[in-house]
C-alpha cells in the first residue's frame, strides 16, 4: 500500500526575517515564563502586585527590537515586561523588583512589579500614571535634537492611556516640532474593566494620528514581521527628521488587569476568547512552517527557559529586603 506523504507547506521567508522571528519567539517565551512565575508568586503572597504582559508580548518585542539599547530610549507603561526583556532587562531583575528586594536595579523594590527604569539601556522610569511617560519620550526626542544625536524615543501606552490628556499633549507637541518619537499603542480593548467602545467613539486609536499630522497604522499585534517592519519604518522616519508615527497594535488581554482584579466584568466567553487569542502558538506555527523550529525544539527551549527563570527566582528570593533606614535615600542628589 502506497502511503502518500503530503509535504508540509513551506513558507519561504528571507533568512533575516526567520532570524528575527526566532529571536522574538525566544524573548516571548522568556516573558511568558517570567509571567507564569509572577502569578504563582502572587498567589503565594510573596509578590504583592502582578501586572501581566500576556498576549502583548509579540507586539512589544517586535517594536522594541527596532531600538538600539543605550542610544535610543524607551518609555514604557506597566504592562511592558516583554519589551523590557527585548532591550536587555533580565528575568532576575524583574523578579528582584517584584519581590521588593533592595538590589532591584530598577527601583530598589520601591515600585510595583514591571515599573522598569534602566538609564544605561535608555529605559525611562515607569510610573503607574497611565500615559505619564509619553511627554518624557517627547522630551527625550527634543533633547536628542538639541544635542545633535540621532536617537529615537519609543513610547508605549494602552488603549486606556490613549484617553489621557497627557497623550494628546505629547502627540501634538511631538508632531508640531517633528520630533523623533514613535508612539506604540497596545490596544487590548480594556481600560481595566471599561471596554473600548466606552473609551473612544472612533474605531481605532490610530485614526487619531491624522489629526496630529502624523502617520497612523492599526495592526494585528500578533503579526511579528508586519509590526516589526512598521516600527522600523517609523524609527527611520523619526531618525530622518520627518517626525513622529503612531502604531496601534491590537492585542488580547489574556489575563485579568492585575493580580488585584477578578476580571468578573468579562463574561466567561470573553475571557476564553482572549485567552484563545494567544499570539505565541501562531508564531510557533510560523517558525515551524519555515523549518526554523520543531515541536521537540520548542518544548525543550521552553523547558530550559522555565528552568532558568526558576533558578533566577531562587537567587532573587535569597536577596535581602531593603534596610528601613534607606527609605529617604535618593530623594535628592547624593
Amino acid at each position, binding site marked *: 500500500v502506497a502511503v502518500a506523504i503530503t509535504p508540509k507547506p513551506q513558507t519561504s521567508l528571507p533568512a533575516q526575517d526567520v532570524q528575527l522571528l526566532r529571536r522574538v519567539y525566544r524573548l516571548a517565551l522568556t516573558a511568558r515564563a517570567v509571567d507564569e512565575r509572577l502569578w504563582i508568586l502572587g498567589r503565594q503572597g510573596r509578590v504583592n502586585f502582578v501586572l501581566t504582559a500576556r498576549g502583548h508580548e509579540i507586539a512589544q518585542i517586535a517594536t522594541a527590537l527596532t531600538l538600539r539599547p543605550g542610544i535610543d*530610549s524607551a*518609555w514604557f507603561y506597566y504592562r511592558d515586561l516583554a519589551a523590557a526583556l527585548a532591550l536587555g532587562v533580565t528575568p532576575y531583575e524583574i523578579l528582584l523588583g517584584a519581590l521588593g528586594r533592595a538590589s*532591584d*536595579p*530598577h*527601583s*530598589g523594590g*520601591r*515600585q510595583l512589579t514591571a*515599573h522598569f*527604569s*534602566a*538609564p544605561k539601556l535608555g529605559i*525611562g*522610569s515607569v*510610573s503607574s*500614571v497611565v500615559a*505619564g511617560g*509619553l*511627554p*518624557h*519620550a*517627547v*522630551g*527625550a*526626542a*527634543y*533633547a*536628542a*535634537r*538639541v*544635542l545633535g544625536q540621532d536617537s529615537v*524615543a519609543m513610547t508605549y501606552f494602552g488603549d486606556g492611556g490613549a484617553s489621557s*490628556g*497627557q497623550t494628546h*499633549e*505629547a502627540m*501634538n*507637541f511631538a508632531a*508640531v*516640532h517633528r520630533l523623533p518619537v514613535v508612539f506604540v499603542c497596545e490596544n487590548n480593548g480594556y481600560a481595566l474593566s471599561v471596554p473600548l467602545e466606552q473609551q473612544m467613539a472612533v474605531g481605532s486609536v490610530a485614526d487619531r494620528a491624522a489629526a496630529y499630522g502624523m502617520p497612523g497604522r492599526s495592526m494585528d499585534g500578533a503579526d511579528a514581521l508586519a509590526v516589526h517592519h512598521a516600527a522600523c519604518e517609523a524609527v527611520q522616519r523619526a531618525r530622518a527628521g520627518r517626525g513622529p508615527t503612531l502604531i496601534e497594535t491590537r492585542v488580547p488581554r489574556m489575563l485579568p488587569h492585575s493580580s488585584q482584579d477578578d476580571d468578573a466584568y468579562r463574561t466567561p466567553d470573553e475571557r476564553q476568547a482572549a485567552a484563545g487569542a494567544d499570539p505565541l502558538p501562531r508564531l510557533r506555527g510560523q517558525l515551524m512552517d519555515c523549518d526554523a523550529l520543531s515541536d521537540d525544539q520548542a518544548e525543550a527551549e521552553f523547558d530550559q527557559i522555565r528552568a532558568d527563570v526558576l533558578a533566577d527566582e531562587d537567587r532573587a528570593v535569597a536577596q535581602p529586603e531593603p534596610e528601613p533606614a534607606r527609605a*529617604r*535615600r*535618593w*530623594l*535628592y*542628589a*547624593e
Partner: protein
Amino acid sequence: MTQGQHGITFLEAVNAALREELARDARVVAIGEDVGRKGGVFRATAGLQAEFGALRVLDTPISEIAIAGVAIGAAMRGLRPVAEFQFADYMQVAFDQIVNQAATMRWRSVGGWGCPVVFRAPFGAGVHGGVYHSQSVEAFYCHVPGLKVVVPATPRDAKGLLKAAIRDEDPVIFFEHKQSYRRFRETVPDADEVVPIGVARLDRPGRDLSVITYGVGVHHARHAADVLAAEGVFVEILDLRTLAPMDRAAIARTVANTGKALIVHEANKTMGVGAEIAAFIAEELFMDLDAPLVRVAAADCHVPYNGPEEEAIIPNPDWVIAAARKLAAF
C-alpha cells in the same frame, strides 16, 4: 546685561541669569508658551530666542502637561531645561508631571535618573489678574519631597538663585512674584554670582521682633520696619529665599535674637508655609519665645479681579505694620 547707574530690576535679573546660563552651557534650554518670539508675557525671556535660536528657546503649544513633561524627559536625557509656566496658576494643569513625575524620579529609580529641571512661574496677586493670574501656590510644592522651592525677593537673589537652580541636580520650582518684577533696581555683581539654595538671608537686623517671610512679604516687611523704626521699634527681617529646603537654623537664630516671630506670606493662611514655620518654632524654639506666634497671610479666599475685594483679602504693608506693632507691645 549692562547695568544702569542704579542696577537692574528683578525681571532683568531673571533675563540676565537665563542669558548667561544659555551662553555658559549648551545643555540649557528655555521652553514655554510665548517665551520665544514674544520674549515672555512679562519679557523675562526677551531677546533670548534671537540670541540662542528657536530650538533652545522654544515656543510651545498651550500644553502645560507637555511643557513640564517634555522638560522632565529632556532633563533625564541630558539637557538642563528651564520650563516657564506663564502664570503659577497654570501649574496645577501640570501637577501630575511636577508632583508624581519630577519629584519622584530620582527616588523611584534609586538614584538612576536625575531630573535637573527648573520650573519658573510668575505668581502672586496685586495686579488685578483675577483668580487665574494671581495665586500663590508655593505650599502645594513644599509638601512634596524631591522638589526644591525657591522664592527670591530681590534682583540680586533672583539672578544668583536662578543660576543655582539651573545648575542644581534636582527639580527646582522658581517662583517670581509679579510685584517684585519692576519694584526697584539693585546692583548685581558682574561676577558669576551663584546664591546657594537653602540659605536664608538676614535682610535687616533688628532687636525687637522678627519678621520671617519671603517674596513680596520682604517688601512689605521693609516698609513696616521703616515705619516702626520711627516709633523706636526695631524689626529684624529674615528673607527665607528658599522654602524647600527651609533654612531652619536661620529661623532659630532670629527667634533666639528677638524672642518674637511674625510670619508673613501672601498665600492663604490655612496649611500655608507659615503653618510649618510656626510648627517648627513651637516644637523646637518654644523656650526662646517671649510672645505668641503671629501670622499675617491671605484670608483663605480665591483672588478676585476687582480692587476692593482683592485688597480685602491680600496682605499689604499696613497689615504687617499693625501686626508688628501689636507684637512689639506684647
